[in-house]
């Protein structure tokens, strides 16, 4: 790096409110309300209500509006993928992160140096959102939710096959699949359709709004119905999607002989799946697995890597051994749930 160029660690810092770009005067995914925020995506551990000004993709803004309503922010500035915007001499672009609808990496250029903040991301194709775009940079701030080499997500298709096989083996049981409302729910729907499953899929009430939002954004998900509209016996041998907590709580008693499945990267570890009372674990994740994390670090050619959001020590260890300057950010406020 030329001495005339800026060193990113002099202008991007961690503060109690989260990652902060000094010359641009903005925080990224701030933990508490700030004057100016850039939000990578709509999950609750990244998007919070009450900031004065928010910059995000149109998808993320729509998601925040549907979650927070009036409280979303003082002003909302949508920015399409790839469009540059100048903020006090800092150039900012949002590029796809492949995590959920609207999810973005934040590319920040300042005095010849480039920082990319990944937000949450994954590398494998997802029919419900734009694919991750790798971008060369000097400093890469990466997530590490699945930052241990035991996490290697199998191909999605095999996991969906497991679900369909179980339906044929237990046709009298209602298959209730635990999914997060934003992203996982719609991805599982899209994957089911891709595997040729054409029957209606039933949704717990908490999932309906976000699924409709995806459809407004032009993501086809096939026939879906609120579960309450099906007579009880009609749910035998059907798929019901529900928030993970609902699958093993009182709500599930209203389903006929429910078989509890769960779609999450954590399902890779059997004891975790058993402890959650899951009968059919489906390893379907919206986060990069270990191989994707390590490959991405190599691909973006950054000299320096900051690791946050998960199991940081193993990825820092790996990056250091590969010759990167690496450190753990230890930011708080991140949620293990996908």
């Amino acid at each position, binding site marked *: 790096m030329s001495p005339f160029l800026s060193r990113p660690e002099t202008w991007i810092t961690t503060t109690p409110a989260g990652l902060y770009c000094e010359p641009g005067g903005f925080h990224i995914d701030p933990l508490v309300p700030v004057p100016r925020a850039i939000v990578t995506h709509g999950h609750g551990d990244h998007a919070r209500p009450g900031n004065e000004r928010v910059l995000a993709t149109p998808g993320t803004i729509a998601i925040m509006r549907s979650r927070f309503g009036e409280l979303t922010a003082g002003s909302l500035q949508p920015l399409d993928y790839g469009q540059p915007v100048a903020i006090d001499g800092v150039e900012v672009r949002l590029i796809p992160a492949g995590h959920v609808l609207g999810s973005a990496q934040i590319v920040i250029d300042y005095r010849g140096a480039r920082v990319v903040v990944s937000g949450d991301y994954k590398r494998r194709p997802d029919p419900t959102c734009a694919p991750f775009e790798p971008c060369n940079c000097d400093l890469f701030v990466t997530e590490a939710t699945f930052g*241990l*080499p035991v996490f290697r997500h199998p191909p999605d298709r095999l996991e969906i096959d497991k679900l369909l096989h179980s339906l044929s083996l237990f046709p009298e049981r209602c298959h209730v699949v635990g999914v997060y409302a934003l992203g996982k729910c719609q991805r599982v729907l899209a994957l089911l359709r891709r595997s040729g499953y054409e029957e209606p899929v039933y949704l717990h009430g908490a999932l309906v709004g976000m699924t409709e939002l995806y459809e407004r954004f032009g993501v086809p998900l096939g026939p879906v119905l609120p579960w309450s509209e099906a007579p009880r016996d009609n749910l035998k041998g059907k798929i019901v999607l529900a928030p993970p907590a609902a699958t*093993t709580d009182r709500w599930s008693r209203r389903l006929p002989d429910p078989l509890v499945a769960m779609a999450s990267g954590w399902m890779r*570890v*059997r*004891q975790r799946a058993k*402890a959650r009372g899951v009968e059919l674990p489906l390893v379907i994740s919206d986060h990069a697995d270990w191989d994707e994390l390590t490959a991405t670090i190599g691909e973006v050619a950054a000299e320096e890597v900051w690791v946050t959001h998960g*199991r940081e020590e193993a990825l820092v*260890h790996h990056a250091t*051994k590969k010759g990167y300057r690496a450190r753990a950010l230890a930011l708080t406020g991140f949620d293990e749930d996908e």
Partner: protein
Amino acid sequence: MNRFAALLDALLFTPSRNGKLRLMGEYFAAAPDPERGWALAALTGELAFDEAKPSQVRALAAARVDPELLGWSYDFVGDLAETVSLIWPEAPGGKGHVPTLSEIVEKLKVASRNEVPGLLEPWLDALDATGRWALLKLVTRELRIGVSARLAKTALAEWGGVELGRIEEVWHGLAPPYQPLFDWLEGRRPAPEVGDLPTFTPLMLAQPLEDAEIAGLDARDYLAEWKWDGIRVQLVARGTEKRLYSRSGDDIGAAFPDICAAMPPDVTLDGELLVMRGGEVAAFNDLQQRLNRKTPNPKVLRDFPAAVRLYDILRDGPEDLRGLSFAERRRRLEAWYAREPRPALDLSPLVPFTSWDELKELRDGARDRGIEGLMLKRADSLYVSGRPKGPWFKWKRGALTLDTVLMYAQRGHGKRSSFYSDYTFGAWRGDELVPVGKAYSGFTDEELRRLDQWVRNNTVRRWGPVREVGPQIVLEVAFDSVHRSTRHRSGVAMRFPRIHRIRWDKPYRDADTLEALERLLT
């Protein structure tokens, strides 16, 4: 191997018995020979690879993976076989030949300890993560998928459309991979010959009898004997071959060399396995000390001497006695015992009586340790495997009960995973409640719903699936007996505790004390 691995994986996660049966049945129908035979051997616990050790698995992984990453991963996962199966670097592109279960078994059976790692490594490269997990669990003998040998045989019986008893009868004449068994079940040849092998004869079992039902029976038709509080066993000797079978047909002879040594040649006997000292039956807890050990050391043999109290004789020399009446078999048993008295074997005496009232008094008066109640057997009953209705009854002494206070509730499993259905209850020691047991049965669905609701509304603390509740609910708990235990904070452990009644009415301060429970110690 992949199909077998998928089966193990599915069995691990399927809590219900029926679900497990269906999974195994589907596997037996689809898997080829001899693959399914080896799988059956694995499920029934008959596969052992003594030369494969967990340390070899650890060393293989350490050679392939950064040790720091392996360490953090092991800390996170908490199980060696699973950690290694997940972390094993997958070879890009060609993964090599995926082994069948048969290949794995056949090669490992003859491998020396030094050869084992060289076999495992290419298999780990070729298999996927589930396959690696199954392989490592199999070689380290840690399947723990919640399937007993009996359940696996039940699945086989259901799939083959025969009675479980028929499978158990032929089982011990066969060896993995059980080709004649599958040939028979698929109709390609007749049932395997049992011949002169020391095979298990499925037991004849008794039905429980309530006090109210006794009036319908004629006392003159029945013989009575004590029901001893041990475990029911079958002793089978053919020449020098000797077997001690549990009631499910598992050979437990290795754990009881003292009984095997006492066994006479060429006979099949039915009796109760007990620990006895000087002609006295010891507490069930003492027997537990023996049952817990696969191979007992001399001290354990000396401190917990096992014995079998004989109830019945099924075969004497070449003669099958099952077609004789119980009264006749009893005479044959007594005659045989007079001829062949043995240390560690004695006869369970008949209990003479003239009326049910007299017998009931004898039953309730029997304070002997080790007596659970009475067995009533029709004098004319033939020995029929299974649990036929009518010929044999067990007439247990009334259970012991204690009023306890609900302390913790835990979520159940399977169908009950949305309910707090496992209850820990305590008894008073001074002002303090001490947990004395755990029960998860004995209530109706309606009571469960009510308890569940109550637990949710009265939680004072929670950790994961467990909720601590304030003292309020009195549970009247029934149990068969109570024993000293060093593993419990209370120092005692109940046998078969279940909820007898929920005393919504009773003030929790009036529940029983630990002292009261200790007075019931056997």
